[in-house]
């Protein structure tokens, strides 16, 4: 019996090749997109999951709440915090400080291996860090390898780069910033791609310069602290101790009434965009949910296509049903028969989908700039997912047609008297409306995403981003002496317009916040974002002053320039009033000499912070060069050779500012692309579904069309008639889609502090698009129906 059913199923599929291919193809690209989304989401959700104590690991983070309701967040903590936490909390089993920094790392030449010198991201970590996170150690161990000064632990990959083979690395020496020797005492296994901790070179914390700092007033995003909660301790039990801790160290001082520290679970580090992380990769849950919704939409549209075509086709199989019933088949058996047919189609579609997704995976990898590799069957869970999809889609798509078909009355069915409406015209129309509504929602969503992204690209951030090169500078005291000479030489190069020393560009992901005083000895109740810059900074980045003048040339803190936000927060109405007021911060004291027009110092996700800028040579990390656009390539070559002659022991590193800024929106870029692609797939699927349906309707109405033609209807009138009914459905669908899309889009935009105004145009546009595609599809198909031979259609049945 099963074999026979299979035969009938296959012959039926073959008989209706057109509908079958629409079904299978539509389903296959829908499923393929779902597979891709699954792989992507699985990857995003797998971050930082592989630690034995993962659910007890937390990061201490900092936030500032202001009276006006604004909040700022930092992934970092004040330098003395880890030690104090270790001392004061009984709820933590382990506490570890870890600092991110950068430096020039060099390994001396070994026999058979040339000297390796690179500019690297480096870390200083306490041994307890590796007790909290159970890394796999290839050599050494967490208790011994990082306890002594001047020791360093390498990842397998780093060890291989510097020493050729990690086994040779142990006991050898790395030189940091051409100054200090570190002995390699341990090797850890490489971090996987899905980690927020790209640790490659980890120095012992005792070697960290500022390890004994007592400054509670400053926080940097690169000073992180992790804790391991004792077993059985509840998060709520931390509330009181944290409050006591804040009172003891932070709140008793006049400056920091609003500082807060909280513990952030390890598993949210990849997903919380308030805070950053060392890897600078993050993916908010909101975005993931958005993608999952699109995935569901995809499945739904593909299933709707299937249901529509299957029920429309059902009439033609009524005779088979009748005969089977007469021969004694029960309804249940028929339902199973039709369901297994759907399962067969779904299975074929699923195989095709696997091929399609295998082909498109490299495209998805490209989105990440080659940092990530995906593989279809890399994780066994995919098989569970495929099986679930097979079952769900078979039931979702197959059940309704099966119920309809198995319900035919045998007497009517045998005489072929089942009417065309048996498949439930009403339901079919409803499904088409749902499908179009989904399509419209996605068209609107896509349009808004595209608009917001181009808004971000084109928004004036308040500073110049074009043709500015950021060159890192060596940090040792010997090199610092050469800074001025370097600058002088650079200014001699043709094509260099302006040069400025600075701790960071106006907008940067490395930020420092600190408390300060203004016009009194009392600390202000909020913190300022600080940048150490020289006198040429404002000109180089095109920053505008609304009062006063730029700071004068100096190597130490002498004068301040603050931004509009800062004086607004201080309730100073007229910027000129602020000029001449005395500020202290970072141990420096001086008058405010200028107020700079607000510019976006973070990404556009966040509000502009209150800012203070001053000169301080010891904090300059790099040099910003404004270039003449005419011959950037040549100029940069000369800059590089100047750098190499001035600092022969260091590594030249240069980044263009506008490229650098793009990195702020990488998540949006990736999500934007995925959104666009998958939305187009949904749109495509629903329109091939429409094409299938209209083909069917046209076939069903052939006789009617012929009669109308005999009565004098022109082709145009017939096409209009067929279009009409579908256009109504599209119109209703759009009305349904608008409020839903509005809610989605509004929510998404709310994630941007600076965003486009939502206008009616994306909505109108979505309607026009869906209407015109409908008109094109229906017209194409109905023209054929209208042109068909009238007399043949009117012959006796």
């Amino acid at each position, binding site marked *: 019996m099963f074999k026979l059913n299979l035969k009938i199923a296959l012959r039926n599929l073959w008989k209706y090749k057109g509908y079958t291919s629409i079904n299978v193809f539509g389903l296959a690209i829908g499923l393929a997109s779902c597979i891709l989304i699954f792989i992507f989401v699985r990857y995003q959700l797998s971050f930082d999951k592989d630690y034995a104590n993962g659910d007890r690991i937390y990061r201490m983070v900092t936030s500032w709440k202001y009276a006006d309701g604004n909040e700022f967040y930092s992934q970092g903590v004040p330098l003395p915090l880890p030690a104090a936490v270790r001392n004061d909390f009984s709820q933590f089993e382990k506490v570890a400080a870890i600092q991110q920094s950068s430096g020039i790392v060099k390994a001396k030449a070994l026999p058979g291996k040339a000297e390796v010198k690179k500019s690297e991201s480096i870390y200083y970590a306490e041994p307890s860090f590796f007790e909290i996170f159970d890394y796999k150690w290839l050599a050494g161990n967490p208790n011994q390898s990082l306890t002594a000064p001047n020791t360093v632990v390498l990842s397998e990959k780093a060890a291989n780069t510097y020493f050729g083979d990690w086994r040779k690395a142990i006991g050898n020496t790395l030189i940091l910033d051409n100054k200090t020797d570190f002995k390699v005492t341990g090797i850890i296994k490489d971090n996987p791609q899905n980690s927020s901790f790209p640790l490659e070179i980890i120095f012992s914390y005792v070697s960290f310069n500022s390890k004994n700092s007592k400054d509670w007033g400053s926080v940097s995003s690169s000073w992180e602290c992790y804790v391991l909660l004792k077993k059985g301790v509840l998060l709520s039990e931390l509330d009181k101790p944290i409050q006591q801790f804040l009172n003891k160290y932070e709140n008793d001082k006049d400056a920091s009434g609003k500082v807060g520290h909280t513990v952030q679970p390890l598993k949210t580090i990849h997903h919380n965009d308030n805070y950053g992380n060392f890897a600078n990769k993050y993916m908010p849950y909101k975005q993931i949910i958005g993608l999952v919704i699109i995935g569901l939409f995809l499945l739904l549209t593909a299933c709707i296509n299937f249901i529509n075509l299957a029920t429309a086709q059902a009439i033609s199989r009524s005779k088979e049903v009748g005969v089977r019933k007469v021969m004694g088949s029960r309804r249940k058996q028929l339902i199973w028969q039709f369901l297994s047919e759907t399962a067969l189609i779904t299975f074929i579609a699923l195989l095709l989908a696997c091929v399609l997704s295998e082909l498109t995976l490299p495209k998805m990898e490209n989105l990440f700039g080659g940092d990530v590799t995906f593989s279809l069957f890399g994780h066994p869970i995919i098989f569970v997912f495929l099986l679930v999809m097979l079952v769900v889609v078979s039931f979702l798509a197959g059940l309704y047609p099966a119920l309809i078909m198995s319900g035919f009355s045998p007497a009517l069915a045998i005489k072929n008297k089942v009417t065309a409406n048996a498949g439930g015209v009403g339901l079919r129309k409803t499904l088409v409306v749902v499908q179009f509504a989904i399509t419209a929602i996605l068209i609107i969503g896509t349009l808004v995403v595209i608009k917001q992204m181009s808004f971000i690209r084109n928004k004036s951030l308040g500073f110049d981003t074009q043709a500015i090169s950021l060159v890192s500078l060596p940090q040792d005291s010997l090199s610092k002496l050469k800074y001025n000479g370097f600058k002088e030489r650079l200014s001699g190069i043709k094509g260099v317009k302006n040069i400025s020393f600075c701790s960071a560009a106006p907008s940067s992901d490395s930020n420092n916040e600190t408390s300060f005083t203004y016009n009194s000895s009392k600390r202000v109740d909020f913190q300022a974002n600080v940048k150490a810059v020289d006198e040429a900074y404002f000109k180089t980045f095109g920053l505008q002053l609304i009062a006063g003048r730029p700071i004068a040339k100096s190597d130490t803190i002498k004068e301040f320039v603050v931004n509009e936000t800062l004086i607004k927060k201080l309730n100073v109405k007229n910027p000129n009033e602020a000029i001449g007021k005395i500020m202290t911060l970072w141990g420096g004291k001086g008058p405010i000499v200028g107020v700079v027009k607000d510019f976006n110092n973070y990404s556009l996700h966040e509000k502009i912070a209150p800012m203070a800028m001053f000169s301080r040579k010891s904090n300059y990390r790099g040099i910003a060069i404004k270039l003449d656009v005419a011959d950037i390539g040549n100029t940069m070559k000369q800059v590089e050779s100047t750098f190499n002659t001035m600092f022969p022991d260091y590594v030249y590193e240069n980044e263009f500012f506008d490229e650098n800024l793009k990195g702020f929106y990488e998540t949006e870029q990736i999500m934007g692309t995925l959104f666009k692609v998958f939305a187009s797939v949904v749109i495509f699927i629903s329109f091939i579904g429409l094409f299938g349906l209209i083909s069917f309707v046209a076939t069903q109405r052939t*006789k009617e069309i012929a009669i109308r033609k*005999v009565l004098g209807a022109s082709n145009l009138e017939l096409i209009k008639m067929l279009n009409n009914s579908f256009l109504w459905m599209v119109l209703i669908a759009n009305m349904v889609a608008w409020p839903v899309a509005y809610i989605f889009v509004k929510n998404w935009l709310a994630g941007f502090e600076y965003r486009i105004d939502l206008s009616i145009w994306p909505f109108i546009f979505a309607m026009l698009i869906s209407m015109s595609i409908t008109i094109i599809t229906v017209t194409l198909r109905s023209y054929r129906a209208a042109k068909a031979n009238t007399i043949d259609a009117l012959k006796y049945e």
Partner: protein
Amino acid sequence: MIKIENLEKVYKTEEIETTALNGINLHVKEGEFVSIMGPSGCGKSTLLNVMGLLDKPESGSYKFIETELLTLNDRERSNFRKRNMGFVFQNFNLIDELTVFENIELPLIYNKVPAGERKKLVNEIIGRMNIVNRSGHFPQQLSGGQQQRVAVARALVTKPKLVLADEPTGNLDSTHGNEVMELLCELNETGTTIVMVTHSSHDASFSNRIINLKDGHVISEKINKGRTEELI
């Protein structure tokens, strides 16, 4: 009114060519009622379809009051048809999804008759056809005879110059068949030209002239004296 000369129509299918009409010559006067008879497959329906501009012959000439119709393009044919011709089929060919009233109204819509006048015309003809209490029904709810009366009503509502009927009684029993024939006669008496295909000599006896077709030829013509005198 109608002058058909040397009409030829060949159907080409994959395997064979069928000559359905082979040099047909036929003249129909205004107000005449012509029957076409002949064995199955001799080309009667084909001839009627060509006359109704539903099909194009290979060669020949078809003049309708001095207008050559075979050179018209698609749109002109469709326009000419809806203004001048009405059709009655053996299998009624009503639209199942439309009511009796709407079915009859349809040709008026395509002739761009204003709504008010449409209503008047349809109600008028529904009265004449004796189907008043059926105007809101769907075709499936009517008997065959009633359906064919609706079809005749639909053919007449535009007041066409020519009515083409292809075996109008073929699907009806003799009582209903006679009702339909009487309708056609009444119509003919009011001046409408009718060309009817039929297998029944009883039906043919209602007409002025009977034309016999065989293998696409006209083989004989018979004047029905009893009726023709009225015409003269």
